[in-house]
């Protein structure tokens, strides 16, 4: 187990550097000069531009910029945005909001998605199963931004249960509607994945054995069936946490949640290199750690898997 974890962590290192470098290349080789853009309509003094570029290390070749950035990163310095505010500061403001939103969505996705999946998987062909299938298909087909508008119109404008946009991003009750919208797509996938997985495992030999030796149905389902059926679902959930944070761009924009998605979207539009790279780097770290945890969870869920 120990050596497996070590190997996995070692594998993560090139992936971390590769992904951040890729982002770095995409952000900093963009055409259009962000420093000149800072001056707006006014003519920029070349010496001032050169000076700013020097402070931000922009006059160096890309690989040097990257090494410099990484050097600072490992000392906990995410750099400074072009507006002069430390990127770490910007993120400290926005990340708590998005983490709450994502965790709320994640919880919703797990509880409702699994419940739907289990019900429809155990009773294949029933009305509940058909209902779940149709419902998830509809949710998968309707793009998230359209779904967000439908939710806004129905729950806020027509029913008046909440405000159409979020007034206070730190208020959890206001985040419920955006979280439900954010979770909807993944929820549908979780439900379908669980359903398929349960359907496959129901016919497995070990279930027949468990039934034959007279175990109560409840024990068979919770101890044998669910534990084995959850393995592919866990894989999906692990990679999905990162997707939720990425998907927050659309949801946060429409519901006016002052989280990382909103900040990132503005930063991309304004070619705010340091902010974009900083945020995406953190997202990549979250993703890598989540997929490591998933791999380790395998051993807990499936005794057949033993890491040497």
């Amino acid at each position: 187990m120990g050596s497996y974890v070590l190997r996995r962590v070692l594998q993560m290192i090139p992936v971390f550097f590769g992904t951040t470098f890729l982002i770095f290349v995409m952000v900093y080789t963009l055409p259009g000069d962000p420093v000149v853009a800072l001056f707006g309509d006014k003519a920029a003094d070349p010496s001032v531009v050169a000076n700013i570029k020097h402070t931000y290390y922009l006059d160096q070749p890309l690989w040097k910029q990257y090494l410099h950035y990484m050097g600072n990163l490992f000392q906990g310095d995410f750099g400074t945005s072009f507006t002069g505010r430390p990127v770490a500061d910007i993120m400290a403001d926005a990340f708590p909001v998005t983490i709450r939103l994502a965790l709320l969505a994640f919880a919703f996705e797990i509880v409702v998605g699994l419940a739907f999946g289990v019900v429809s998987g155990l009773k294949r062909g029933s009305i509940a199963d058909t209902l779940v299938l149709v419902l998830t298909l509809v949710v998968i087909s309707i793009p998230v931004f359209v779904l967000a508008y439908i939710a806004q119109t129905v729950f806020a404008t027509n029913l008046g249960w909440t405000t159409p946009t979020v007034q206070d991003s730190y208020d959890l009750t206001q985040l419920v509607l955006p979280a439900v919208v954010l979770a909807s797509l993944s929820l549908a996938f979780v439900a379908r994945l669980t359903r398929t997985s349960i359907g496959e495992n129901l016919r497995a030999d070990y279930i027949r054995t468990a039934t034959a030796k007279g175990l109560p149905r409840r024990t068979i389902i919770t101890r044998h069936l669910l534990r084995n059926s959850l393995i592919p679902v866990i894989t999906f959930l692990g990679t999905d946490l990162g997707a939720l944070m990425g998907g927050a761009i659309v949801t946060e924009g429409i519901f006016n949640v002052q989280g990382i998605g909103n900040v990132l979207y503005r930063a991309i539009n304004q070619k705010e290199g340091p902010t974009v790279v900083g945020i995406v780097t953190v997202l990549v770290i979250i993703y890598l750690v989540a997929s490591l945890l998933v791999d380790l969870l395998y051993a807990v869920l499936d005794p057949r898997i033993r890491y040497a």
Partner: protein
Amino acid sequence: MPDIHDEDSYERHPKPGVDRLDFAGEQGMAVEQETLVEPDVVKREQARSLWGDAWRDLRRRPIFLISVLLIVLLVLMAIFPWAFTDANPRKADLVHDYLKRPDWTDFFGAGWFGYDAQGRSIYARVVYGARASITVGIVVTVGVTLLGGLTGMVAGYFGGAVDAVISRIIDIFFGIPLLLGALVLLNGFASRTVWAVVFALVVLGWTQIARVMRGAVLTVKQSDYVVAGRALGAGTGRLMFRHILPNAVAPVIVVATIALGGYIATEATLSFLGIGLQEPTISWGIDISSAQKVIRTAPYVMFFPAAALSITVLAFIMMGDAVRDALDPKLR
């Protein structure tokens, strides 16, 4: 009982007698199998290929037929939009047509779905918008299948150091969420045409297929017939494309078909955010985005392109689902 053409539609085994190697391989296999299994079983297994089976299964599924019908209609709409409407999607008449409500008596006419805030026929824009979505969906899917399929095949087939390097590259690209990466990448394009969007989605989207392909090749590589093929002196290319590929391609096709709908949705999301397609390209995503301003007073401006988009994504996902059910023997 199986039809002859079902079997021919996809060759799992090379035909004997095409060249000497082939002939020897086929005969050798048959003899070996016959000594192990009942001859009767062998015959039936060979006659009913996975693809023939799947096709017979699909033809009987109403969901598959409905989705294929929808897709054919959408593809026709993408190729010949003028056959579906006389109206010009770019003609804007602010004086007479500003936010005119849908007129159901104007069946299939310009005013059928009403007019948007610039006095343009929503029906015409829905029809002409199919082209961007369908092109992006199909071209991106073909692109990721070729790029991902090839890399996955090479990684799975050669294994060892090649696999380690390719797998890390796959991990690197996989770590970037599709939408996020596409936003950053497309922001760098001065003019964002359909091809720019296709490029961004292929560059960031091929990893899923590569992983599936690699996994499938790793399993198939162990099969006796591959070992037999190698023992008989078949070259790398022959083993890869004649022996392994036909038997490893099923999961790839399933993933690709389902992903197609997702690419269409991603394109629309990018265009909605203002970082995908640009005017004058007609795209449902752009139209939904500009309908935001009038959503309270004229919700139908958003409804029709949103419905068209959802139905398109739905059709491709339903088709993918049906193909998966037909190709996955575990679910039978």
